[in-house]
């Protein structure tokens, strides 16, 4: 088909009004529509997979007329990396929509909630499948607006405070991204990622340096790397569980994807050979280590069920930053993107399971929980799968990708022995993540029973958790589909 990627954008946009009016009548059907759209979109994206795997340059591009004055065309493109991210995003939205049916059923104003979720899916998918920086920025902010209202409108405790913090932090980051994009446009006169990649090589390296820093700082805010992570624990823990799953699973991954695609893929080649280039990569490594240790250590002492998972997201973005800092090597890049995919599934599952526990018990302190394994077997199983995957235990998903990142790190040590100590430190950090995962499981599901009446949640919540749990195991046992797809993409 000619317009496959355009359809994936248009479909949710066209469905948004229907979702709204249906949401006025029923609290279930809008979720089914979103799920249906996700299934259709996954099917549409799978059509492109053979083209990418077998095509000459492993790319698929569609271009439409948009704002010619600004050299902004509506360019949609897909290669292995963006396609895997888009597919996993859709799977997560599907799970979140199904989970919402039971999870949100007592809440008010669900028509608005599902409409915002539909709009969010446009931005979330769009950010991965465009190569025009202007369109990219549009989608980037389109992720932000619906999330703000979902967290604020349907969150816990003081939701608008958390949402405000989220909005201001990430919007400030986005403004730095905008500055970088404006500077790229000024230097190259173009906004296409692949055109500008070459044009930037001819530009003044002093300026390129600033562009690179401005973009990376902006993306790092979305990714919640330490020290710009402050919005994450609040936003992730106060949001409703399906939204937390999307935030931790996909939105922060979009930050990592953007660093890979725009900072490293588009701008970085222009300064790769200079001393600033290696300094920049080493900087990423150091911030990665700090994030990994900071997130893991706080997750070890935190007692709020969702904040533990939120801090573990910061830790995992640390691994991703470390993976990104090994940039030009093929294995670590594949490993990093695979880790984004695996982390999205595992963390999504983790948040949904925690949401199920919170919903059934209506408490959030893990010290007051215990012995739930017997009463909530399915939630316990899915939590265990998620927690062990997050801890990097084989045969669950995240083990595979962490392994690939470390293989890449050992390759890098051969060339640049700066990476020797960071790699050792990162290996220590994985032990910490096992520690907080086990602490979580033992507090919540093992030990003496404290809540007699707790049961497994309703059917749609279970369905959503089972889908993601099966996927987490499947990706751990057979990662070949994604590794093939991801390694077919060449960034430089």
């Amino acid at each position, binding site marked *: 088909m000619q317009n496959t990627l355009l359809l994936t954008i248009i479909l949710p946009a066209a469905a948004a009004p229907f979702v709204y009016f249906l949401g006025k009548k029923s609290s279930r059907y809008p979720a089914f529509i979103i799920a249906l759209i996700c299934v259709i979109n996954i099917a549409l994206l799978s059509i492109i997979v053979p083209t990418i795997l077998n095509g000459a340059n492993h790319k698929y591009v569609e271009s439409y007329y948009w704002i010619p004055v600004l050299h902004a065309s509506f360019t949609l493109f897909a290669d292995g990396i963006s396609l895997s991210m888009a597919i996993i995003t859709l799977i997560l939205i599907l799970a979140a929509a199904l989970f919402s049916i039971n999870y949100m059923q007592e809440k008010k104003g669900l028509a608005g909630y599902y409409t915002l979720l539909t709009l969010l899916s446009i931005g979330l998918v769009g950010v991965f499948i465009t190569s025009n920086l202007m369109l990219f920025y549009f989608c980037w902010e*389109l992720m932000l607006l619906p999330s703000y209202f979902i967290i604020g409108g349907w969150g816990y405790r003081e939701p608008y405070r958390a949402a405000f913090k989220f909005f201001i932090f990430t919007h400030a980051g986005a403004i730095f991204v905008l500055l970088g994009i404006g500077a790229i446009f000024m230097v190259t006169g173009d906004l296409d990622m692949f055109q500008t990649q070459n044009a930037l090589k001819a530009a003044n390296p002093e300026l390129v340096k600033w562009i690179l820093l401005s973009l990376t700082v902006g993306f790092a805010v979305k990714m919640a790397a330490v020290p710009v992570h402050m919005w994450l624990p609040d936003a992730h823990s106060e949001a409703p569980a399906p939204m937390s799953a999307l935030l931790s699973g996909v939105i922060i991954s979009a930050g990592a994807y953007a660093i890979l695609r725009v900072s490293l893929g588009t701008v970085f080649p222009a300064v790769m050979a200079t001393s600033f280039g290696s300094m920049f990569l080493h900087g990423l490594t150091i911030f990665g280590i700090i994030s990994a240790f900071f997130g893991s250590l706080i997750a070890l002492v935190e007692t709020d069920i969702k904040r533990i998972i939120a801090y573990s997201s910061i830790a995992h973005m640390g691994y991703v930053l470390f993976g990104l800092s090994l940039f030009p090597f093929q294995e670590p890049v594949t490993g990093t993107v695979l880790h984004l995919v695996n982390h999205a599934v595992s963390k999504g599952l983790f948040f949904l399971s925690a949401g199920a526990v919170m919903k059934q018990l209506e408490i959030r302190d893990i010290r007051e929980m215990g012995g739930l394994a017997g009463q909530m077997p399915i939630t316990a199983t899915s939590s265990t799968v998620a927690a062990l995957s997050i801890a990097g235990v084989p045969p669950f998903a995240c083990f595979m990708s962490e392994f690939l990142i470390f293989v890449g790190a050992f390759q890098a040590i051969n060339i640049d022995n700066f990476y020797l100590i960071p790699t050792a430190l990162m290996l220590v950090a994985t032990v910490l993540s096992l520690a907080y995962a086990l602490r979580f499981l033992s507090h919540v599901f093992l030990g003496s029973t404290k809540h007699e009446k707790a049961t497994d949640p309703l059917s749609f919540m279970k369905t959503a958790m089972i889908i993601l749990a099966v996927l987490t195991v499947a990706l751990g046992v057979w990662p070949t589909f994604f590794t093939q797809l991801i390694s077919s993409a060449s960034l430089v």
Partner: protein
Amino acid sequence: MIELLDASLPIIAFVLFSLLTIPVVKIINKVKGGKNILLKLFWFLIIFIVTGVAVANLALKYYAEPSPRPFLNLSLTGDASAIFSSMFLVDAVSVYMAIIFTGVSAVTILYSLFFIDSDKELSERYYAVTLMIIGCVTGTVLAGDFLTLFIFWEATAAGSSFLMLYQKTARSLHATIKYLVMIIMASAFIIYGLSVIYAITGTLNFWEVKHALAALADKRLLEIVFVFIAAGYSIEAAVVPFHMWLPDAYTAAPASSSAFLSALVDQASYYVLLRVLIYILTPPTVLPWNFMFAVLSALTMIVGNLLALTERDVKRLIAYVCIADVGYNLVAITSVTPLGIMGNLYFFLAGGITTALAFMIIGVFNSMGIKNMEDFSGVGRRMPLTSLALVLAAFSFAGVPAFAGFIAKYLVFTSAIEANMGWLAIVGVLTSVIQAAYLLRLINYMYAKKPKEEGKIKEPKKLLIPIFILAATIVVLGVYPNIVLNLIEPVIQQFQLMP
């Protein structure tokens, strides 16, 4: 060929209709009941069809000119040496301004027809003054020499004071006097500066002044003159530190006037700055004033946004946003690039309709007694449609993509980077974050706080029509800005051909 009549027809039409409106609306007001508003609508429909045709005629004739699209000077005498050697100047910028002014003013008048100010409908004099101002503003953007510009622009400023005074309260009297004192000082500065310019160059025609000044060997006198002219026009555009009149004036005026003033008169004042600074005192050939205005621009953005951050009265807060908008416009003006001029022209429309929209909505809220931030608690649930429109306006102000304000700010900041003034762009984006912060605080009050009273408030359906026309325009212009960008693209070409 464009004749003098083509250019003066929109102005004449507006002024004539303004004079006719007083008797006509008086007669219409004798009819009571539902027919009254229909007749009024019909009357204003006629006005805007006629003036719309006049403007469209001018635009079509201009675009039918052989390419590259020229600057057309139209004069009364045809004698180039006369003082009035060009009464009118028709170029891509002025045609564009005339089009958007006619369109936007039609929507603001539609609003004022339904707007009820302190239990009374607006009187016929209000409409007459409004139409007169539209005529004068159109004259301002079409003026081709300093004297014509001065006459039309001062007439606009004087007319505006009637709109501010409309409520006849002590507060509005105070604000109007403050405004008039500032404006009279400004025009004194300007007239002094212009007289010296006439003494130096012997002409007031834009291009001849420009050539004569560029050829000047000793520019010391020009520097002094520049201070007068720049200060004069800066006062009228409310550039910090000359901004004090604006918040008072806009808060004291009825909401329909504030919407009208911010959408037309404010934008026209930026147009005057643009025309005088870029097209006539072009740096660096005539006078390198960039840095001075860059500093003023940074000051305006910072002060405007910080004042808004501390403000509790929402109408006044929007007035401070207007001041911040002056700063963003100045960023593009000081960059002196084609992209910057495009950014300015886009901002005139985007910023104008966003502030007008905001004032219109605040007018609806004020009529329900909702004035301060605290009063806005929980109105999101009680008045969903009006609140939604305010959220759209707020996001457009903050420069969030998919809203018109984003494209405007993008063009403006990119032009600053292009002109090697990265620092100004950084100040601009950081103040945008402040802007997002206080607008989000307002949204926070609207949706997160508990309302003082429960229950829905009846929303005025008729007032929502103009409000949602503007809100839809903001979204359409944000997603598909080509509609306007194509119209202003000739400006780039024209800028390079500047005589």
